[in-house]
C-alpha cells in the first residue's frame, strides 16, 4: 500500500467523522423538534378521536338506530294508505252516478204513487155518489168511502214526503257529483305524488342512514390505524437512539481503521492482515451507514404516514355525515308533513262522503217505511175489495155500480203491488249503495289509519332523535375542523423536521462515497485484500462496542459480501420478556 493512499485515507476519514458529527447534531435537533410537535399533534388527535367518538356514540344510540326500521315501516304504511285510497276513489264516482240513476227510478215510483192516490180519490167520490143513490140500503158502503178517502190522503202525504226527500237528495247528490268530479282527479294526483316523493325520500334517507351507520366501523378503523401509526412513530423515535449509538460506533470504528491503515504501522509490521482489517472495517462501516440510512428513511416515512392518517380522519365521511343526515332528516320531515296534510284532505273527503251516506240512509229509511205502509195499504185495499164484493152481492142488482168500484179497487191494488215491488228493488239498490259508500268512508276515515298514524308517531320521534344526533354531529364536525386547522401548523413543523432528516441522507451518501472511494483505492493497490479477511478477528475488533443485534447482523452481512436489508423488522418494536 502506498503512503499516499494512507494519507488520503486518514484525511477522508477525518472529513467523514466531521460529517457524522454534523449528522448527529442535526438528527438530535430534528428529533427533539419532532417529538415536541408530535406530542402536541397526538393531543389534538386525541381531541379529534374524542369528538368523533361522541358522533359514533350518537349514531350507536338505540333511538337513532331505530330510525331506519321506523321510517321503512312508515313507508310501507303510507304506501298502503295511498293504494287503498287510490282504489277507493275509483269507485266513488261510479257510486254517486248510480245513486243519481236510482233517484230517477224513485221519482218514477212517486209519480206512479201520486197517480194511484188520484185514482183512489176518484173511487172515493164514486163510492160516495153510489152511497147517496142507495140511501139507507147503501149505508154499509159509507165505511168503504171513508176508508178510500183516508187511504188516498195518507198515500198523498207519503208520496209528497218521498218526493220532497228524493228531490232534496238529488240536489245534494248533484252537488257532490260535481265537487267530486273536479276534486277527485286532484286527490288522486296528490296521492300518487305523495307516494312517489315519499318513496324517493325514503331511498335517500335509507342511503344517508346507511352511511351514518357505517360511521362507527369507519371510526374504529381510523382509530385503530392512527393507534398503529402512533405506535410506529414511538418506535421510530426510539430508533433515533439506536441510530445515534450506531453513528458513534461508526466513528469509533474510524479510529480502528485509521490505526490499521497507518502507513508506519503497516510498513513496520509489513502485515497485509492489517490492511485487510482496515478494508473490512471500511466495508462494515459502509454497510452500517446504509442500514442507518434505511432506518432514517423508515422514520421519515412512518412519521409522514402517521400525519397523513391523522388528517384522513379529519377529512373522513364521519365529519361530513352530520350535515348530510340533517339535510335528509329535513326532507323526511317534509314528507311527514305531506302525509299529514294528505290525511287531513282524505278525512275531509270522508266527511263529504259521510254526508252523502247520511242522505242515502235517510232515503233508505224513508223508502223502507214507505214500503211498509204500502204493504198494509195493499192489504187494506184487498180487504176493501173483498168486503165491497160481499156487500154488493147481498144487495143484488142495486149494487152493480158498487161492483164496478170494487173492480176498480182491485185494479188499483194490483197496480199498487207492482209499484211496491219497484220500490222494494229500489230499496235494495239503495242499501247496496249505502254499503259501498260506507266502505269508502271507512277507508277514508281516521280509524282505519291507525297503522299509518303509529308509524308517523314513531318516525316523528325517531326523526327528532336523528335531528339531535345529526345536529350534534355537525357541532362535533365543526370542532374537528377547528382542531384540524390548528394541526396544520404542527404538521408543518413536523414537515420541517422530516426535511431536516432528509438532508441527513445527503451527508450519509457523501460519507459512504468517501468510504467507497477509500475501499476502491485499497483494492486497486491490493487486489487480494478481501481474501485475507480473518472474520473472527475482524468481528472482535469492530463489534466490541456494539449494543444492538442489528449492528452485529450488518457486520456479518458486510463480511460475507451480502447486503443487510432487515432493518424494517425492527419497525414494529419489541415485546417485553419477563423473567
Amino acid at each position: 500500500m502506498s503512503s499516499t493512499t494512507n494519507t488520503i485515507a486518514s484525511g477522508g476519514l477525518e472529513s467523514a467523522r466531521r460529517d457524522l458529527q454534523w449528522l448527529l447534531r442535526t438528527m438530535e435537533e430534528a428529533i427533539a423538534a419532532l417529538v415536541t410537535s408530535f406530542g402536541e399533534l397526538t393531543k389534538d388527535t386525541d381531541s379529534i378521536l374524542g369528538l368523533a367518538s361522541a358522533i359514533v356514540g350518537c349514531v350507536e344510540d338505540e333511538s337513532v338506530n331505530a330510525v331506519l326500521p321506523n321510517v321503512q315501516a312508515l313507508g310501507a304504511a303510507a304506501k298502503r294508505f295511498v293504494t287503498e285510497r287510490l282504489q277507493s276513489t275509483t269507485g266513488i264516482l261510479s257510486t254517486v252516478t248510480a245513486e243519481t240513476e236510482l233517484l230517477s227510478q224513485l221519482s218514477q215510483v212517486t209519480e206512479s204513487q201520486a197517480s194511484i192516490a188520484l185514482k183512489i180519490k176518484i173511487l172515493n167520490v164514486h163510492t160516495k155518489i153510489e152511497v147517496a143513490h142507495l140511501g139507507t140500503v147503501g149505508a154499509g158502503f159509507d165505511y168503504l168511502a171513508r176508508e178510500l178517502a183516508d187511504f188516498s190522503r195518507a198515500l198523498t202525504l207519503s208520496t209528497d214526503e218521498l218526493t220532497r226527500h228524493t228531490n232534496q237528495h238529488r240536489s245534494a247528490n248533484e252537488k257532490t257529483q260535481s265537487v267530486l268530479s273536479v276534486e277527485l282527479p286532484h286527490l288522486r294526483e296528490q296521492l300518487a305524488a305523495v307516494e312517489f316523493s315519499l318513496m324517493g325520500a325514503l331511498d335517500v334517507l335509507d342511503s344517508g342512514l346507511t352511511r351514518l351507520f357505517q360511521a362507527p366501523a369507519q371510526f374504529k378503523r381510523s382509530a385503530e390505524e392512527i393507534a398503529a401509526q402512533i405506535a410506529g412513530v414511538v418506535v421510530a423515535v426510539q430508533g433515533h437512539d439506536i441510530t445515534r449509538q450506531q453513528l458513534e460506533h461508526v466513528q469509533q470504528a474510524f479510529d480502528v481503521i485509521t490505526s490499521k491503515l497507518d502507513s508506519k504501522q503497516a510498513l513496520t509490521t509489513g502485515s497485509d492482515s492489517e490492511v485487510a482489517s482496515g478494508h473490512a472495517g471500511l466495508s462494515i462501516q459502509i454497510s452500517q451507514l446504509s442500514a442507518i440510512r434505511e432506518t432514517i428513511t423508515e422514520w421519515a416515512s412512518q412519521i409522514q404516514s402517521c400525519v397523513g392518517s391523522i388528517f384522513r380522519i379529519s377529512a373522513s365521511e364521519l365529519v361530513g355525515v352530520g350535515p348530510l343526515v340533517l339535510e335528509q332528516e329535513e326532507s323526511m320531515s317534509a314528507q311527514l308533513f305531506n302525509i299529514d296534510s294528505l290525511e287531513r284532505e282524505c278525512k275531509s273527503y270522508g266527511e263529504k262522503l259521510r254526508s252523502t251516506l247520511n242522505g242515502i240512509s235517510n232515503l233508505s229509511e224513508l223508502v223502507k217505511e214507505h214500503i211498509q205502509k204500502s204493504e198494509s195499504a195493499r192489504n187494506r185495499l184487498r180487504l176493501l175489495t173483498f168486503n165491497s164484493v160481499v156487500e154488493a152481492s147481498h144487495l143484488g142488482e142495486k149494487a152493480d155500480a158498487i161492483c164496478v168500484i170494487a173492480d176498480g179497487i182491485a185494479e188499483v191494488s194490483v197496480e199498487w203491488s207492482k209499484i211496491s215491488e219497484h220500490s222494494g228493488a229500489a230499496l235494495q239498490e239503495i242499501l247496496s249503495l249505502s254499503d259501498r259508500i260506507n266502505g269508502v268512508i271507512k277507508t277514508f276515515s281516521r280509524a282505519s289509519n291507525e297503522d299509518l298514524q303509529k308509524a308517523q308517531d314513531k318516525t316523528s320521534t325517531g326523526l327528532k332523535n336523528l335531528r339531535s344526533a345529526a345536529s350534534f354531529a355537525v357541532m362535533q364536525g365543526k370542532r374537528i375542523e377547528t382542531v384540524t386547522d390548528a394541526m396544520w401548523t404542527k404538521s408543518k413543523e413536523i414537515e420541517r423536521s422530516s426535511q431536516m432528516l432528509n438532508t441527513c441522507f445527503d451527508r450519509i451518501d457523501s460519507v459512504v462515497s468517501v468510504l467507497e472511494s477509500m475501499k476502491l483505492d485499497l483494492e486497486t493497490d491490493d487486489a487480494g485484500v478481501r481474501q485475507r479477511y480473518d472474520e473472527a478477528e475482524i468481528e472482535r475488533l469492530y463489534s466490541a462496542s456494539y449494543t444492538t443485534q442489528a449492528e452485529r447482523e450488518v457486520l456479518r452481512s458486510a463480511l460475507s459480501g451480502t447486503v443487510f436489508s432487515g432493518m424494517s423488522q425492527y419497525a414494529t418494536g419489541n415485546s417485553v420478556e419477563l423473567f
Partner: protein
Amino acid sequence: MKRVLTVDDSASVRQMVCFTLQKAGYEVAEAVDGKDGIAKAGNGKFDLIITDLNMPNVDGIQLITAVRKLPGYAFVPILMLSTESQAEKKDAGRKAGATGWIVKPFNAEQLVAVVQRLVK
C-alpha cells in the same frame, strides 16, 4: 394514579415512554441517568421502574442493585429497556433484580399491557 419512573440518558426514549404510559393513564417521572434514577426513587414512591442499561455515571444494573436496597422497593417491578439483547447481559439484569427485559425499540401496546399486568 399509578406512578412509573423512566430512567434513560436518551431524552427521546424517555419522552416516548412518558408519552406511551401517560396515554394509558399512568403518572410518569423522568430521570436522566442511573444516579438521578436512584435519587428520584429514594425521594418518591413508584409502582414500576423502567431503566436503560448503558448510561453515564451509574448504569442500569447498578441502579437496580441500589434501588432494591431502598425501603419499599424490594418487590417493585423493574424493567430493563436496552438496545442490548445478548443473553449474558439479560442474565446480569435478572441477577441484579430486574423483573423483565425489553429490547429497544419497545412496542407501545405490549409495554402498556405488561405494565398493566405488573402494577395491577
